Structure formats: structure tokens, C-alpha cells
């Protein structure tokens, strides 16, 4: 059988003249949904249902990550409600563990073992410790994060919440909602908080 040919569907049913104009949004919408349905397949842990969007994902896609203020506000509100702080009240873990998590970009790919804990992929996008020269710049530099802000409870809470669900603070942020989506455990997040805030962490040297 020939490869599935959704783009080959007779979308020009309204005739050649009609096709000279831009296809309507709803037609494109329908075509995209079909294209997605036939173009992806479950592999390992990466099942096709991952392509189903939640409300935040759908809104961000719709507005190309720049939602109007009112919608951004709604997203931030709904995402804030998702954050679960540790019941123990302990927000700071071990910065050494945090550094290991920050370095690792594995997890959740169909090539990754599902049993292996995910990394935080932090260096992919942020400068963190100064020793690591290979860092990305999609996110802001976090070097001296704690040195500039202290390590009190308020900032601990902010850092935990931001890693747990970045969209609570900034709708359509590029940063994955690590806690909300279950990518990182509560404990892993506390280690990352320590990496950022612990005065002994290389981040604050």
C-alpha cells in the first residue's frame, strides 16, 4: 500500500478557482488533526496519546506562545493551582544531587529506559555552575541565583514552584512543567532548589 496520503485528500472539492485562495482555518485544522493521526506511532514509552494536548498546551499552540494578557492570566491561574509543595515542608535537598540532575538530559524519550529516572536537562537551557562551559541560553543564567537572592523560605518556595510548574509564573514558558507533568519527583526538585540556593553550591561561589 502507498504511504497514507492525507495531504493528498481531495481538499479542492470546491473547485480549482476556490483553491487559489488560502485554505480556511477550519480546513487546515481538520487536515492537521488527520496528519497527526497518521504520522506518529507509539514507540516504547512514547505513546501516541502524548500528542493529546491539555488546555494550556492547546492555548499556547493556538497563540504561538504569545497569548493575549487575559488568556495568559487564566493559564497562570490554573497552573498555580497545580503546584503541590512537599508535605514535609522541606524544600531544599542536596545540591550535589541537584548538579547531577541538572546535567542529565535523559528521560521520557522512546529510546530511554522507562525505569530510569529522568534528568532535569537544566544545562541544556541555562548557565548554572560556572565550571560547566557547555550550557544553553534558551533560559536565563542561573549563576549566583542564591547569592543574589538569599536562601530564605520565600525564594525556596518560588524556586520549587517554578520548577514544578513554570507556567504558573509565565504562561507558555519554554520550560517544561517538571513537577506537574511528573517528569521530576518532588525530591529531585528539592535537590535542584538546593543547587540554586544552597550557599555551598558552586552556583553561589
Amino acid at each position, binding site marked *: 500500500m502507498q504511504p497514507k496520503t492525507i495531504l493528498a485528500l481531495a481538499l479542492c472539492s470546491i473547485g480549482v478557482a476556490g483553491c487559489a485562495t488560502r485554505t480556511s482555518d477550519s480546513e*487546515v485544522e481538520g487536515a492537521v488533526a488527520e496528519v497527526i493521526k497518521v504520522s506518529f506511532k507509539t514507540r516504547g514509552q512514547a505513546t501516541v496519546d502524548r500528542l493529546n494536548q491539555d488546555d494550556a498546551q492547546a492555548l499556547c499552540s493556538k497563540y*504561538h506562545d504569545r497569548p493575549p494578557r487575559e488568556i495568559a492570566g487564566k493559564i497562570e491561574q490554573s497552573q498555580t493551582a497545580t503546584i503541590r509543595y512537599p508535605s514535609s515542608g522541606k524544600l531544599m535537598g542536596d545540591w550535589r544531587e541537584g548538579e547531577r540532575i541538572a546535567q542529565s538530559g535523559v528521560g521520557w524519550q522512546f529510546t530511554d529506559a522507562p525505569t530510569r529516572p529522568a534528568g532535569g536537562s537544566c*544545562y541544556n537551557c541555562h548557565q548554572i555552575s560556572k*565550571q560547566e562551559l557547555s*550550557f544553553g541560553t534558551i533560559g536565563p543564567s542561573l549563576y549566583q541565583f542564591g547569592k543574589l537572592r538569599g536562601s530564605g523560605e520565600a525564594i525556596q518556595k518560588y524556586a520549587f514552584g517554578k520548577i514544578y510548574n513554570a507556567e504558573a509564573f509565565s504562561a507558555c514558558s519554554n520550560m517544561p512543567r517538571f513537577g506537574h*507533568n511528573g517528569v521530576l519527583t518532588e525530591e529531585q526538585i528539592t535537590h535542584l532548589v538546593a543547587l540554586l540556593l544552597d550557599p555551598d553550591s558552586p552556583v553561589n561561589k
Partner: protein
Amino acid sequence: MRIHRLLAGMLAVTLPCFSLAQQDTLKEIERYRQLLQESNPAELYEARGAEHWKRERGPKNSSLERCDLGLGPGVVKGAYVRLPRYFADTDRVQDLESRLVTCMVTLQGFTPEEARRSPFSGTGTPMITTEPFSGVSRPSVMTDLVAWIASESRGMKIEPPMSHPKERLAYQAGERLFYYRAGPYDFGCVTCHGEEGKRIRLQNLPKMTNAKDAQRAFGTWPGYRVSEGEVRSMQWRMWECIRQMRFPELEFASDASIALITYLAKKAEGGTLDAPSIKR
């Protein structure tokens, strides 16, 4: 080697030099990239690809020399920079690789499954990323053909046609897919390719809606990736980005892949093809 590399990553054995400024790092990386340009193993693939084009293969024991890549049967020169495009015989928008699948089916008598079986060459790769495709010494006829066919458009302007409604629809679908965020990491193509001058680790990220970036990015695929010791194609680039986005697997030569490539080709319009290139 891979074990060592992974260990290095996991144990955070970072670069021991504290004094080297970021600027020097980037300058040296640039120098590294310059040094790579001296010689490109993609040439070896191009030579094989040219042979595959002429070789009689398949149940029909026929070559691909009558394959129509959009400029008429057998015309290879300049074909790559005018893809993806609409083909009347399949009533479908096709990129190079999906078109080659069609030719392998119609001219050589392969089944589509056979034609798509080994989309990407896979020999020992130091990265875990392409292991699903690897086995030892498993060159891919498809990859070799892509390397050669692209080389026959080297130096030419990227000019994807956009006159057929289905070409425009593919573009629009590609645009939607580019902004489509999903999965456990909330990623979309736009997450990494929506802003100018950004990097993942030390790798520069093209902003795909910026013509200059898109031209450079699109114009340097296919490329020999030194990290994998293989030539990789645009189809592979899509497949691999999608994998890293934590999406399910993007099927080779699927409509989504073609839509994305159509979108990117259009964004890169007017750029010059400088491929097969050599990259990290």
C-alpha cells in the same frame, strides 16, 4: 567510547578550566567547526548514491534513472532545491525521500514497506539517539541517494514551489505543527526554534521564522554528523527533533514530516544550498 561519554555526562565531569571565558569557548568551537570543513566524509556517501541511482535493483530489475523528482524523468540537477512539491501522479506533496519511495515502488517494484525499511544509515553511532536505526555496517541506499541528489543542487537557490493548493496546505499544516506543543515536556518545535541567538548547550539554534537562520539551517541538510559518523537527511532531522521532544515516533516520509519540511523549505526560500554539509 559511548560509555565514557555517558559517564562523563552523568558524573558531571565538567570542563576543568575555570578561567576560560565563554567568549573563548564559542570562538574555539567556531574554530573546530572551521577545521571540520577541510574534508567531508559525505563525499563517500555521494559517490555511493550516484551508483545506486544507476544500479538495477528490485523485482523489476530496473534503475532509478527515469525517476521524476519534479523537473521531469531523470532530471536530478536542481531537483532538491525545488522540493517538497506537488506530484500529480501521486496527487500528493512529497519531499525527496517520500518521492524516492514512490520511484522505488513504481520503477523498481519494491513494496512501500521495503522501500522505507532502511531510511537512515546506521552504523556504529557514538550516540544512543540513533540506536533504533543502527546495526553494525548498515548503510542505507536512501541516505546515499539523498546525499548525492542534494549534492547535485549544491550552490543553487532554495525555491520550493508554492503554487498548488496542496503545497500551500502542506505549508499551513507544517506551520501548525511547528507551534504544536504537547507531551510530558510541553515541547513544540517553537520551544527551541522560536527565538534568535539561542543555544542548547553549545549548539546554536536557528530561529525558523527568521529567513537568514532558516536558510542556513535548511541549506545545510543533509549533512555528515560527526557525532554519529553518518550522513543525516532532513527526514532524519525531523525524526530526531521529534524524538527529543518526547513525542511518539514520527513515521518516515509521513505527511507530518513532509508538512514540516515544506514549512521549513518555504521559510528558507532564497537561501543557497550548501549541502551535504559537515556538522557536529
